[in-house]
């Protein structure tokens, strides 16, 4: 029987994408498959001991000027309400966040059939969250600028 990671890696390659396979926990049969699509790197975690379960994730870098950890955690929690099928996790001291989706399609073959739909969902959720973070920070900066010039009597 082919390994789960091989089935999934072969599928992604057959769809046109280069895949980098690396063991996360060789003993436990956990591997990470990295590939790039539409300019974004995605990771698929496969479990040889649990061939029905997969995890897809991707990271979004938060622009330096928008790194307000507390506020961004709140924004990610709000985004989580809008995309309940994915999880948002802040990482690297607030410098980036990771969008993760756990899937249990039942088999590697079933997973490959829905892979691009899951990727699209994760991408949509990530893009939505980063837009919210940037919008919120921009609005806040604009409001602060207005208030400070108002306090100086410029307005």
């Amino acid at each position, binding site marked *: 029987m082919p390994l789960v990671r091989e089935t999934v890696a072969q599928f992604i390659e057959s769809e*046109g994408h280069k895949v980098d396979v690396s063991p996360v926990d060789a003993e436990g049969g956990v591997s990470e498959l990295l590939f790039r699509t*539409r*300019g974004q790197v995605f990771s698929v975690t496969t479990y040889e001991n649990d061939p029905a379960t997969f995890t897809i994730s991707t990271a979004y870098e938060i622009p330096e000027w928008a790194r307000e950890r507390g506020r961004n955690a709140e924004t990610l929690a709000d985004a989580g309400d809008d995309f309940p099928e994915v999880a948002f996790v802040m990482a690297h001291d607030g410098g980036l966040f990771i969008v993760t989706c756990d899937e249990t399609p039942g088999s590697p073959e079933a997973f490959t059939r829905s892979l*691009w739909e899951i990727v699209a969902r994760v991408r949509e959720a990530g893009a939505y969250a980063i837009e919210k973070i940037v919008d919120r920070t921009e609005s806040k900066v604009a409001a602060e600028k207005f208030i400070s010039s108002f306090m100086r009597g410029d307005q």
Partner: protein
Amino acid sequence: MDDTLTGVESALDDEGLFFTRDDDDEAYRIAFKSEGDRYFVVAYRDDPSFLMIGSGWALPAEIDTLDATEVANALNVRKKFVKTALWEDERDVLFTVELCVNSAEEVRPHFGRLLDVLRDTAAEFFDELREDEDEEDI
């Protein structure tokens, strides 16, 4: 120009995509897939500043070609970069981006965007036709 498509090869490497070359006496050609969909890039030897990136699709049998032409026209009016063309006899649809470049290296920083717009245009074309079909069925 030695090889017009070297810059496109670099762009495909940047995107993490496999590709194949299939040059002939007339043209330089690249074929590749992204998320399972097939694309091509072509530059003609006698017109090396012309570059075309595209994807071809078959029109499903149930789709009326007049409806398809209408949707294609609407997309041609609205969409940046992409030309949508129908080969009625073959029932093929071609989505292309046609560019004039000094070197394909100029395309490299914009390749992801061009690929996105090709993909989105094809998706919109078929989505709109499906919606039209659904409305007719009601």
